[in-house]
């Protein structure tokens, strides 16, 4: 187990270095002079240009700039947003809970529906139920979520008027956000209706973001269940006269879940990519929208820092999933 951990960490470090190189190279690959880009359309005077060049370290050789950049990362210095003048890390920390909240809700919804759907489809293999469920899963898997989100808005916000179109909270509520999670903060605030407002703002983005993971989980559960249902121990359990519910739900599902859990863990990258579209459409103030806005605002320090932090989040989650998977499944450890 220890050697597995070491091996896994040994691939983590070079990947992390590579990610820092890409983030570092990003600003330098942009067409045009980075300082003029940062300065915007008004331009800068010659003295100010030299000053800025020194401030950003562009007067140093490239390898030196890179070393300084990495040292900065370990001190939590990811640059300053050009439009808000706030440190990139602070902005990220403030917006990240919104993305986590949305992502967690989406993954919970996808799991709660996807796993039972996959089990039901596998148990009724080839029958109408299986075909209907798997067809819907394929439609969900093929869904352009930016369009799906717009349709949800047309139907539930426009026609039916049930849910708000954008944001995280009704404007009439104002309270402190110690955790950053609206569902928790609205309860802590004690204001009546605040929690309801938080939930109603969450519903549509959650559905939009959950659609693709839901389809993936349902398909994965079905195929994992089918594999397990043919095993001897399932036949034995059946032969012992256990109820189908117990055989399918306990004996089979528990073993089928191992690959499914991995799929759920590894879908973090997909969720973050989906969050870019979902957050933009629903004006959800998370890191996906922040990145898109910053690209359009040409706030490249933010793009650089955000790129690094998001990759880091994905890498850490993947590492945790791999290690957990190694714990559950000894075959992987040897690999």
């Amino acid at each position, binding site marked *: 187990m220890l050697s597995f951990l070491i091996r896994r960490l040994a*691939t983590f470090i*070079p*990947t992390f270095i*590579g*990610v820092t190189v*890409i983030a570092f190279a*990003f600003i330098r*690959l*942009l*067409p045009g002079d980075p300082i003029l880009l940062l300065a915007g359309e008004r331009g800068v005077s010659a003295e100010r240009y030299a000053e800025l060049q020194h401030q950003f370290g562009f007067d140093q050789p490239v390898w030196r700039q890179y070393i300084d950049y990495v040292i900065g990362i370990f001190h939590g210095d990811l640059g300053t947003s050009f439009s808000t003048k706030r440190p990139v890390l602070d902005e990220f920390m403030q917006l990240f809970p919104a993305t986590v909240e949305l992502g967690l809700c989406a993954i919970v919804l996808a799991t709660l529906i996807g796993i039972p759907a996959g089990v039901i489809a596998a148990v009724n293999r080839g029958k109408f139920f299986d075909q209907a469920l798997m*067809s819907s899963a*394929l*439609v969900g*898997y*093929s*869904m*352009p979520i*930016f*369009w*799906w989100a*717009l*349709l949800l*808005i*047309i139907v539930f916000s*426009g026609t039916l008027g049930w849910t708000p179109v954008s944001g995280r909270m009704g404007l009439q509520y104002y309270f402190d956000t110690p955790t950053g999670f609206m569902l928790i903060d609205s309860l802590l605030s004690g204001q009546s209706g605040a929690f309801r407002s938080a939930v109603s703002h969450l519903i549509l983005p959650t559905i939009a973001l959950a659609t693709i993971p839901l389809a993936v989980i349902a398909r994965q559960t079905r*195929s994992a269940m*089918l*594999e397990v249902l043919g095993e001897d121990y399932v036949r034995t359990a059946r032969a012992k006269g256990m109820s189908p519910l117990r055989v399918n739900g306990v004996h089979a599902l528990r073993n089928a879940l191992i690959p499914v859990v991995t799929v759920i863990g590894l879908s973090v*990258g*997909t969720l*973050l*990519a*989906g969050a*870019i*579209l979902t957050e*933009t459409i629903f004006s959800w103030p998370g890191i996906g929208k922040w*990145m*898109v806005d910053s*690209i*359009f605002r040409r706030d490249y320090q933010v*793009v650089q820092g955000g*790129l690094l932090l*998001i*990759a880091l989040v*994905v*890498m850490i989650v*993947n590492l945790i999933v791999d290690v957990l998977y190694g714990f559950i499944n000894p075959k992987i450890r040897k690999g």
Partner: protein
Amino acid sequence: MTDSASHPASPASTQKAPPSRLREFWSSFKENRGAVIGLIVFLGFLFVAILAPLLAPYAPDTQYRDAQLVPPFWQEGGSTRFLLGTDAVGRDLLSRLIYGARFSFFIGLLVVTLATSLGVLLGVIAGFAPRWLDTLIMRLMDIVLSFPSLLLALVLVAILGPSLLNAMIAIAIVLQPHFVRLTRAAVLTERSKDYVIAARVAGGRPIRIMFRTVLPNCLAPIIVQAALSFSTAVLDTAALGFLGMGAQPPTPEWGTMLAEAREFILSAWWVVTFPGLCILVTVLAINLMGDGLRDALDPKLKRS
């Protein structure tokens, strides 16, 4: 594969010739009803893309200023002059959708060709290369894969400048690590098999062994991945277009059309609904076909 009798050493020569691989594939593929439907829809879509100038009632960018946001013909206020209605500047929606099929097909084809050729080349090299080069290539792929694909594509487009071509290049770069991993894994399992050792003992040059001996036997998973990547390419390019970082207006690309239509979601449902529906149907057809391909080409996963 056609005539086993010409190889007297082949043990199969005494038995009945096996059915050709293509026929075997087809008989397996056509069993899957969904895959056949997907194929038909895909061919229809290809047909529309090729014949767009003949099928479209109007040019995609002609603006009829007297007919802005006309609803589809079955709705009140619509007319058969514009079957699916018009957009905010009076362009015929149906014609734009038909021309959009051209873009999507072209996007899918180019992105998959780029991603596959680059990915397969790197994958074969990694599979045969000395350890350090193999490690280097695979670590590079890990780095690309540790960014959410759409985010990396967005950033690449920010570097290259927003245009359809740059969006396609960005998506090809983001997709190719999957091909590298797949090809390398297939090469590694094939490499130690007897026929490869025989080819090597017979004095085959390394390049020939890599691409003529081993690669053809690794193709099945690569073809499946290419088919499924086609749908990812269409979807992600549309997403970039939707975010304003792909094809630029007035290109009748479906994602870009959706972006232009966004402000009318609550007043003119048709400008939003139809482009997205086209994307969904196309992607769905390709995925159905891809599932059928996988079942037919990959016996391990067959009919699970």
